[in-house]
């Protein structure tokens, strides 16, 4: 290998590097996709086909597991709940976190840096340590098993996340953009909404997506803070996984798992055109 690489002319070694990169990329992608693929495959199998050895790639597909568990695990309601909670906490966090991140990046506030680090450190507290106190507070306020409770709970970790990401994005933008806008007739808010927001849109949307996914798959708070009315999909999965009286119900697990993943994939496909757009290039000397 080494001799080939060193004796080969520059161009072909470049092509070799390119091939290595492509192969690695494909391998990593397959590595990550295979469990998902297997999950989807399993979810369409009859109970008898799930544990065959060697595993079956070809079988008579069925949607019976889906039909059964949609009813039994109250999937429809949970799906709606999960959408509400993920969208609600994602949007709330993006609004609050972006503005906080902007303030930390741009406005001269005494102790802003310390403040920012403190907010970030709050994420270092293990969620399990917060779950019980949160439950007690929620019960006191009569807020258990409500969407708003989960939305607020998720925002406690999503806001610092958004704030920190957007802060570093804003720091990467030249200050003169807003200054120019402020000279051109904007207030600080005007400059933020008319100039900074449109430029930040791709970054903003990817942050929003990641936030929503974090909320979408969250289990612990949902388990502690909801019961039936506002319960989410991960709670259902945990319920199925925990119900081992007749052995693990792989059919149900994979079916509900597939239901959990599909909306995320669709959502990501819908917004991807925003993700690949260039960021703030061309603003300055370049």
């Amino acid at each position, binding site marked *: 290998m080494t001799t080939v690489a060193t004796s080969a002319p520059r161009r072909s070694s470049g092509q070799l590097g390119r091939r290595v990169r492509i192969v690695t990329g494909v391998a990593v992608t397959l590595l990550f996709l295979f469990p998902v693929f297997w999950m989807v495959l399993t979810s369409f199998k009859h109970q008898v086909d799930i544990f065959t050895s060697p595993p079956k790639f070809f079988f008579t597909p069925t949607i019976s597991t889906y039909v059964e568990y949609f009813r039994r695990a109250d999937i429809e309601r949970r799906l709606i709940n999960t959408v509400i909670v993920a969208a609600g906490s994602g949007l709330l966090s993006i609004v609050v976190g972006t503005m906080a991140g902007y303030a930390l990046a741009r406005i001269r506030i005494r102790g802003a840096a310390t403040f920012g680090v403190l907010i970030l450190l709050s994420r270092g507290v293990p969620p399990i340590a917060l779950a019980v106190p949160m439950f007690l507070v929620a019960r006191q306020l009569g807020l258990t098993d409500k969407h708003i409770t989960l939305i607020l709970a998720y925002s406690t970790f999503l806001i610092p996340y958004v704030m920190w990401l957007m802060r570093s994005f804003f720091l990467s933008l030249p200050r003169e953009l807003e200054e120019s806008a402020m000279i051109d007739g904007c207030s600080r808010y005007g400059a933020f909404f008319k100039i900074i927001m449109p430029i930040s849109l791709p970054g903003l949307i990817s942050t929003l997506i990641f936030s929503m996914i974090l909320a979408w798959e969250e289990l612990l708070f949902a388990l502690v803070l909801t019961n039936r009315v506002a319960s989410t999909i991960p709670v259902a999965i945990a319920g199925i996984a925990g119900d081992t009286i007749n052995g693990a119900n792989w059919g149900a697990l994979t079916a509900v798992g597939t239901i959990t993943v599909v909306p995320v994939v669709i959502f990501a496909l819908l917004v991807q055109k925003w993700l690949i757009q260039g960021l703030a290039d061309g*603003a300055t000397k370049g």
Partner: protein
Amino acid sequence: MGTVDIRNIRKSYGNVEVLHGVSLHIRDGEFVALVGPSGCGKSTLLRMIAGLEDITAGDIVISDRVVNHVAPKDRNIAMVFQNYALYPHMNVRDNMGFALRQRRMPKPEIESRVDNAARILGLERLLDRKPRALSGGQRQRVAMGRAIVREPNVFLFDEPLSNLDAKLRVQMRSEIKELHQRLKTTTVYVTHDQIEAMTLADRVVVMNGGVIEQQGSPLELYDHPASRFVAAFIGSPPMNFIEGTVVNGTHVRLEDGTTIHVPVTNLGGQARVTIGVRPEHFELSNAGWPATVSVVEPTGSETQITARMSGQIVRILIRGRTFVRPGEVIHLTVPPDLIHIFDDSGTPSIHAITRGIKQHA
């Protein structure tokens, strides 16, 4: 009407004062260049005029209105930044029209102003491009266009040409000058390039360490630098400085013991002095200050000679051609009215030449 009156302005960041009381009156239509070494406070002063930095002490008056607490958008000024700060998500047309849209000016009027500015700057064919599809020079022009369409009271420029290559810089320099002659808008122009300042400005303000060292027309500063700092800063190649001790009124003994005759009368009792001579003011002669030639650089129209005089390097600029060779000892004379003499501290000059006043008054 665009006058700017800066009254004893101070600026501190925390405990550090960076502007120590600056006063400057800029007349309507005047082109003032602020020059000085890096960190002397030029940008800070400009940004205070723009309203981007608050004022620690003093007053800034724009067109007879104290603007200390007036927001940038209400000062009717336009600013061109060093990095241009074009809005990346807007095309050239929208970039230029942004301020006008903010003012809710009627569309046709915005269009005609943008088109007009685009014509002046040669941007007509680029109006639909995004900034990222422009070259550095084109971006610079768009930034200027954005300022022009505003028809502001005052233009503020912060090193607008420093990101361009040398050739483009010279070209844009003359375009800016032409623009100013056409629009006659009061302009404050920050640069650390003294040539830019000298060629563009009606008045050059030399700053150093947060104070104004000297201000005046470009030729006043060239002819009568009030301090060694200004003398060294203005003029290219820079002025030569030769240190020595006054011996008897009209002679100065240099460090290596050579004594040169300084044909001026008011040397007074200063013990140690610095003699300043611009390279172009030396003349070769048969008798005079001795110097040993080390390098001769002919450019055709002139010849630059580097020589050693009392262990110090001096630069000499001779019109046309000369036949001196490296190693040769030459003798230099300087017309008496072109010799600058600075006292020991280097600050106030104790002798000012008179020729310039007669010529330019």
